């Protein structure tokens, strides 16, 4: 089972990604989300969605309070669009659920992702999530305000 770093703990993932079979709540694609919302979802059923780098997070706005998981998929480590998606989800759309970065990410990206509001990380398969955890503390200071609350670097007033 997939191990993720979530809220500073390494744990087994209980969600199923769009292509995956098996138990646990389903993560939908953006296209699949509308259908899932429209269907008679069981009361208390959890809603999750996975976005690619070109997907507009504003499309999630109507469902924002119902979403329990948003996965942003990083196709390449140099593709920084996900950082903006994270900031917008947290700051503009008031998203409160789990915000997970998945794909081509390693411990070297952890601090900035956390600053942009991500609180869960499904790393590249070569990364050790337990070893990566310490990198949330890589910087104790920062120059900018940002959406994230998982790390709280000191800043000038």
């Amino acid at each position, binding site marked *: 089972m997939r191990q993720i770093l979530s809220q500073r703990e390494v744990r087994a993932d209980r969600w199923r990604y769009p292509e995956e079979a098996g138990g646990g709540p389903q993560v939908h694609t953006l296209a699949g989300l509308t259908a899932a919302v429209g269907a008679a979802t069981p009361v208390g059923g959890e809603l999750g969605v996975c976005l690619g780098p070109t997907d507009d997070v504003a499309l999630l706005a109507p469902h924002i309070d119902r979403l329990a998981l948003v996965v942003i998929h990083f196709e390449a*480590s140099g593709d920084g669009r996900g*950082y903006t998606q994270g900031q917008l989800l947290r700051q503009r759309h008031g998203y409160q659920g789990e915000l997970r970065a998945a794909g081509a990410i390693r411990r*070297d990206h952890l601090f900035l992702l956390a600053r942009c509001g991500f609180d869960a990380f499904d790393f590249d398969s070569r990364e050790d999530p337990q070893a990566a955890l310490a990198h949330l503390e890589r*910087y*104790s200071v920062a120059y*900018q305000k940002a959406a994230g609350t998982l790390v709280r670097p000191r800043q000038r007033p």
Partner: protein
Amino acid sequence: MAAVYQYDEIDRTFVNERVAEFRDQTRRFLAGELSEEEFRPLRLRNGLYIQTHAPMLRVAIPYGLLNTRQLRMLAHIATHYDRGFGHFSTRQNIQFNWPKLEQVPDILAELATVEMHAIQTSGNCIRNVTSDHLAGVAADELEDPRPWCELIRQWSTLHPEFNYLPRKFKIAVTGASADRAASAVHDVGLHLVRGPDGTVGFEVLAGGGLGRMPVIGKVIREWLPQGELLAYLEAILRVYNRYGRRDNIHRARIKVLVKSLGVDEFTRQVDAEYLANRAVAPQVADAAMARLRASFAPPAYQQLADHDPTAGAGAPFVAWYRHNTRAHKVSGYRVVFVSLKKHGEAPGDMSAAQMEALAGLADHYSFGEVRVTHDQNLLLADVPQHALRELHAALAPLGLATPNIGTLTDMICCPGLDFCSLANAGSIGIAKQIHERFDDLDYLYDLGEIQVKMSGCMNACGHHHVGHIGILGVDKRGEEWYQITLGGSATGEVSLGEVIGPAVARHEVAATLARIVELYLERRESEAETFLQAVRRLGIAPFKERAYAADTVAA
């Protein structure tokens, strides 16, 4: 005390943590835990390239300002980790061409002890902010741009959202009526200007740049209140980060986005983002700006009267005074250019011994501060006029007083084939050829102001598009050829040079330039008409005709 920003505890902690991070990343790379592909963007964000011969380390000199402690550290690094010299770049930084990869974390740790770093001097992120090399001393200045540069340096340093942009992003700030920072050919150019009510704010340009597709930036905001600067920059960067192209490295700069959307639509999107983000956008606090402004307070000038130091002086001093010094806004002082364009040396190169010696002179004559110009020279900004003859006598034996500032041999030049893995051309060799051809100072002075800018490849590190004479190295079936452009300028009325015709062979470059300037001397209306003015008046046709007339000047 030099007017260089002093780190506080936050800045010091940050650079030390950055060094620790890069030390760990280098260790993991050498241990095989990070692939070359994964390590590359990490090392680039710490200024480290892998070049033709060895790694190249580009150290940030924020907006070109150094105190002498920092200059001495650069000399130390050149001596202990390199081959005894450094290369000042057109973006006011310094490059070391021979460091060892495993020693780079140590170099960065040494730099941190003098409040320096190499952060974001490369990579697809916000690069070192550049400015006017005459900031704070020019008479035509409305407001000192340096506090704003430092604000932008801090805001852009490891910005959580904008560290993985589609491509590199360069910002220049000026506060004077003459644009000495080439701001119109930056991704964003900021001009301190008075608004309708007389308050000073920013005119904002976007989408300028050189490289393969040279473009002059467009005004997207005529006047922005100062307190809104970071909020507006965030809006620009966010639109770019979301919508800039990532599928083709040559189409990824913001200029391509501005062009494809059209400037009106781009501006509309930036304005919409700016408004939508108001609730959380960063505001510039008055207290923060007051602290930054205090960092750049004027030095303790003496009360001195202006006088003419050329009275009774010898010809070498008079030539140096005329060409290598400029007016200062405070009476009794003069701005001194330290030429790094000596015949036989690569433009912008400086030895460790020269750095050490210049640091001593700067301590003695110019409040312990040295600046790097966009033209790859250094500058002592605050020299008392009564000390100029002594200073000249000290600079001359160091090889730092070549009286050629603003002349044809004050060329700017990228490192070219000698160091860079991208280059098609040995630009340093061409610089030597030009120096040999134009070794008569009186002839150079007669030609007046001519900016020659040379790039070894299409990436245009030598800014050839905006040279009065531009030279671009091109590869033709494995041979070096050189394309010549005329009429470019990055200052005043900004323009891009026009290609005069087919590229010329390597051994023909200086001779071709000689024919071009000969025509200028024949056709200028008077000595008051500069080369650039003559090119603009005459058009390139007569120059083109002369350039390829091989018999006019014996080659």
